[in-house]
């Protein structure tokens, strides 16, 4: 999309004049086997229009029936977010026309959500921020359009569109926060940390694939600015399509800078939908809120109310994962991490990854080290979230196991990760194929040590005189000779043996 680029105000100047109010709407696609209101499968990536039936295609006469498992997941999400669970609630029709919505209304919940009035404590730079949850409600997803013609494959400028309804009717839970006030300069980080922690919670609940890159978690960012210190609420924009943790942070920062520029110039922000562009890192204007938003909600007459019994809610609360804060304390104790190490791990969005890596057999410090140094650097270089880098906790644990077995060292391990990202196979296969194994065979090492001693008689003399620290120089020579693949510990032992 083209258009004049937005004027932005420098970050410090934004904060000098304005207070941000933040709101997040996160859609979580559930991992139920079937859709929200029909028995069609929900598998990702099937042939177009092969997972449809009269209900999700909106054929005349078809009627919805609620998926019990989806309600159960909604209640569990609500409970995990410390929400109240409605004793009685209904589905409603949200009426608007759009070609990827088969009935031209979305079956959703309106003023009677299944869960409401909750909170989540979000950790940012070692501090806890309480994000209040307004509601979590059930709804259905839409189909997907392919835009044909035009230059970009985007909706604008396309000649026509091709619609696949496989996704139509997949259950979604929409989680809406109350306005988050007082976040100041931390607003971008709080937004990111909230979505990251929410994602981890969803993973722990096991209710969604939680893949932001596949759209199974989608965030909309609401943002407004008010003059600093007034505590007022300004006009907000709703930025859609923010589909990575990194983008959540960037989009908040961008909108704050853009709003400030508009307000500084004496103009008003008007309420609109904006679109986040991952590639260029900017938002662009979508449609203005207008009469199209007269959604004419009314209770879905083809469905009956959902009235979860307290016994059911009680039973489901027994299936919840551990409270996140207690869990953090427990993990820190188990792993022996310092406060700083723990904070960095959480801040990098790597808590779950480290946990899984440890579960797969790696030592806690080793797991932390790989994710927070090597993986974080690689993710940053390629501009993706660490979770979506393409290396799994199991693979990191496997690489570390090779290090522990002295098959490779840390330096060689980096080459193994190169191989993993290039899709060259398992760590073992990569070590074999690339010839990365450490040489610890005394014959080969001994010969290299002998050569090194012969070539550096002055260093050898120092060692003979008891200056063992000088061995490092000889080890370096041997390592160079053996292209890094020597077992440095064994080389040291051999040098000391030969020169004692």
């Amino acid at each position, binding site marked *: 999309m083209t258009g004049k680029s937005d004027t932005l105000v420098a970050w410090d100047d934004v904060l000098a004049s304005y207070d941000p109010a933040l709101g997040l709407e996160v859609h979580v696609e559930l991992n139920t086997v079937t859709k929200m209101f029909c028995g069609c499968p929900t598998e990702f990536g099937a042939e177009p229009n*092969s997972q449809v039936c009269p209900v999700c295609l909106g054929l005349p006469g078809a009627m919805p029936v609620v998926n*019990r498992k989806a309600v159960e997941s909604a209640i569990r999400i609500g409970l995990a977010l410390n929400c109240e669970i409605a004793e009685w609630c209904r589905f409603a029709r949200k009426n608007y026309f759009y070609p990827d919505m088969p009935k031209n209304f979305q079956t959703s919940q309106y003023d009677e959500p299944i869960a409401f009035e909750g909170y989540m404590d979000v950790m940012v730079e070692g501090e806890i921020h309480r994000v209040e949850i307004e509601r979590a409600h059930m709804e259905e997803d839409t189909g997907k359009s392919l835009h044909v013609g035009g230059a970009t494959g985007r909706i604008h400028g396309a000649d026509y569109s091709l619609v696949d309804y496989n996704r139509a009717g997949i259950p979604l839970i929409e989680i809406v926060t109350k306005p988050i006030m007082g976040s100041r300069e931390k607003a971008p980080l709080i937004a990111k940390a909230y979505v990251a922690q929410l994602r981890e919670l969803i993973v722990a609940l096991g209710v969604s694939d939680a893949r932001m890159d596949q759209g199974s978690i989608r965030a909309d960012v609401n943002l407004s600015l008010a003059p600093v210190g007034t505590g007022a609420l300004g006009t907000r924009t709703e930025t859609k399509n923010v589909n990575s943790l990194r983008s959540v942070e960037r989009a908040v920062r961008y909108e704050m800078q853009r709003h400030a520029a508009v307000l500084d110039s004496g103009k008003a922000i008007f309420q609109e939908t904006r679109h986040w562009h991952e590639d260029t890192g900017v938002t662009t204007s979508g449609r203005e809120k207008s009469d199209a938003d007269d959604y004419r909600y009314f209770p879905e007459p083809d469905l009956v109310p959902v009235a979860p019994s307290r016994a059911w809610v009680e039973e489901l609360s027994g299936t919840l994962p551990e409270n996140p804060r207690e869990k953090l304390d427990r993990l820190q104790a188990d792993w022996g991490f310092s406060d700083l190490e723990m904070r960095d791990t959480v801040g990098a969005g790597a808590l779950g990854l480290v946990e899984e890596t440890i579960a797969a057999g790696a030592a806690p410090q080793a797991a932390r080290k790989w994710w927070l140094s090597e993986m974080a650097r690689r993710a940053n270089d390629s501009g993706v979230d660490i979770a979506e880098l393409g290396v799994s906790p199991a693979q990191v644990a496997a690489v570390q196991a090779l290090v522990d077995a002295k098959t490779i060292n840390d330096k060689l391990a980096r080459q193994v990760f190169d191989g993993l990202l290039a899709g060259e196979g398992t760590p073992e296969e990569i070590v074999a194929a690339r010839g990365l194994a450490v040489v610890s065979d005394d014959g080969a090492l001994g010969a290299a040590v002998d050569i090194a001693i012969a070539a550096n008689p002055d260093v050898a003399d120092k060692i003979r005189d008891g200056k063992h620290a000088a061995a490092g120089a000889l080890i370096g020579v041997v390592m160079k000779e053996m292209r890094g693949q020597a077992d440095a510990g064994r080389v040291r032992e051999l040098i000391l043996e030969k020169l004692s």
Partner: protein
Amino acid sequence: MPEITRDEVAHLATLARIDLDDAELDHLAPQLSVILESIASISSVAGDDVPPTSHPMPLTNVFREDVVVPGLTAAQALSGAPASEQQRFSVPRILGDEQ
């Protein structure tokens, strides 16, 4: 007394995606006003203490289990489509935004 103006009818027709022409608007507006007038009595009949009835039979918690039920083939799904391509429904260019 409730009345629907011609402009209001035009606005409602936009919401309902019906391309009413001038003659239809002229005809409909007064008819709708008459209908509205005849049903206006409703607004004062029931007090705040009367609960609404959304269904004649008060059922709750009607669920299905999360089990796959065979649906339609893509060919069946597309059988009524005015146009299709690449096993998808072909629709004219879409105004506005990506959902």
